């Protein structure tokens, strides 16, 4: 119960972080255009930070959110009236594949970061590993969610939707 709460909180924070990355990109790219046209100047680090750091951040964070909410698209050619055991086996297979990918992203993401530890990205002078920093986190969340689903543990998948989809809704 407590673990579920902790992971929901991590998902909640990662959704906020990914949204902030998105909004920040929007602001710096628009500001850059305005500065370029009206002040003949620009934000030198805009392109590198947006595409290398923020883009990877929200891609991998949203990948984990997609697993939690079961958003990723699949092809469903199995008839609706297929026996229950077939559906169960396919469901387990899906989460087994997801667990493997979660592990690869987590473990090899850490190895990737360790491998380039100490290198500096060209602009601005930030550690190059910053580009890949969210990959292990996303991998860990995917691994956790898929193992929980694999063993049929209830993990409150709609938690994020409840938190965000009703914000500002007319009563």
């Amino acid at each position, binding site marked *: 119960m407590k673990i579920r709460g902790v992971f929901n909180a991590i998902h909640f924070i990662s959704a906020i972080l990914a949204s902030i990355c998105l909004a920040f990109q929007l602001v710096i790219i628009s500001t850059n255009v305005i500065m370029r046209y009206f002040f003949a100047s620009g934000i030198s680090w805009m392109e590198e930070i947006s595409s290398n750091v923020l883009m990877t951040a929200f891609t991998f964070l949203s*990948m984990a*959110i997609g697993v939690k909410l079961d958003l*990723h698209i699949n*092809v469903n050619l199995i008839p609706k009236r297929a026996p229950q055991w077939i559906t169960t086996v396919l469901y387990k*297979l899906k989460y087994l594949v997801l667990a493997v990918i979660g592990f*690869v992203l987590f473990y090899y993401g850490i190895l990737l970061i360790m491998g380039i530890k100490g290198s500096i990205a060209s602009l601005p002078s930030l550690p190059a590993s910053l580009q890949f920093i969210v990959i292990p986190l996303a991998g860990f969340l995917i691994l956790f969610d898929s193992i929980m689903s694999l063993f049929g543990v209830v993990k409150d998948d709609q938690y994020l939707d409840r938190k965000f989809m009703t*914000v500002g809704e007319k009563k």
Partner: protein
Amino acid sequence: MIVDSIGITLLLSIFGVLVLLRVPITFCLAISAIITGIYLNVPLEAIVKVMADGVMNFSLLAIPFFIIMGEIMNEGGIAQRIVNLANLFVGRLPGGLAMVNVMDSMFFGGISGSAVADVSSLGSIVIPMMKKQGYDDEFAVGLTICSACQGVIIPPSHNMIIYAFAVGTASQLAGGQLLVVSVGKLFLGGYAPGILMGITMLIISLIIAIRRKYPRGKGYTLREGLVILLDGALAMFTALIVVGGVIIGIFTATEAAAFAVIYAFIVTFFIYREAPLIRFVKILYSSLKTLAIVMSLIAAASAYGYLLSRLQVPRLTTEFLLSITDNYYLLLLLVNIMLLILGCIMDMAPLILICTPILFPVLVLKMGMDPVHFGIMLLLNLCIGLCTPPVGSALFVGSAVGKISIERASRGCIPFYISMFITLMLVTYIPAITMTLPNLLMPVK
């Protein structure tokens, strides 16, 4: 050159089998790349890095911005204004609401670029209106679903950005120099096919409306008309910012998309004021949910593409297809049939990412087809798949919004499949339909 047939079999068969076993496509791509990578002794850190590198592309940033723009438009009451605007133009024709349905999809498609967003937001307004006026359920739903597919072709469309990205990857995979397809030209190339599709649907709807005696819509006073025009024009200006900005060269596609988001934000929250500002939190979250699908696919497809290239699959496919026929027109027909079948069983974005690296070398690099023409033909093929069973996403959303079964919704789509197929054949075999506008407004210097 040695062909690693075990590697190719692993890469293609793991992907194919897992797709059929209902594993999400993103993870089918990733796991087949991981297993093939292990077989080929590629360090898995390298696979993870290729996935990350795949999304580290400034032009790809246009995709999240187009998606946010669509979400803002969905939230802020723009759909009703677009319906009113379409009603003003074509509502008085026989079967007025059917005409409005096609026309508003053309307008909305020019803003959101998403067929599913189009069906869910416009469908929830127009379908009940059509039912109330005595239109058949199947016709109303089928028309809404098929007309929404114009959104994918009429710019701006985030699928065009995905295609432009896939072209860069495809040209590199084929071992040649990096080929960049102009997003501006793609945008311009989409207009005529999109409008052509709309016109064929208008004609078919008109014939059905006259035969079934569907009613005409109501007229407007001059004052009402002006209000509707002004209200709708504010929304339509978003498309002008993106397409105009890119074509004139003021913005890159990414900058134009960012600016369009800011514009849509101001119009929705400060001019239309139908949603409170705090609702932007929900908009960002909803965008994130769509991005979870699209961006993860791009990351996984990058790893898959890397291994396709390592195993020389694009070169082998080119040789295989050319061994069947080297007649350009037959090859086009063959590719169209293949894409239509694939479109029926798989979603659009993964197919763009998977098929472009494989088909681009044959049709563009070998046969000399223009990359813009190829792109529009590809998108048109795949957008038909959005409204066909068993996995058409627009079909599912449309049947849910229209509250009828998928079987009935599919029956309603049948007359419009004909119009889509006619458009596809015309666009495939008459390149001038696609290429006249780009060549005229953005000639090669």
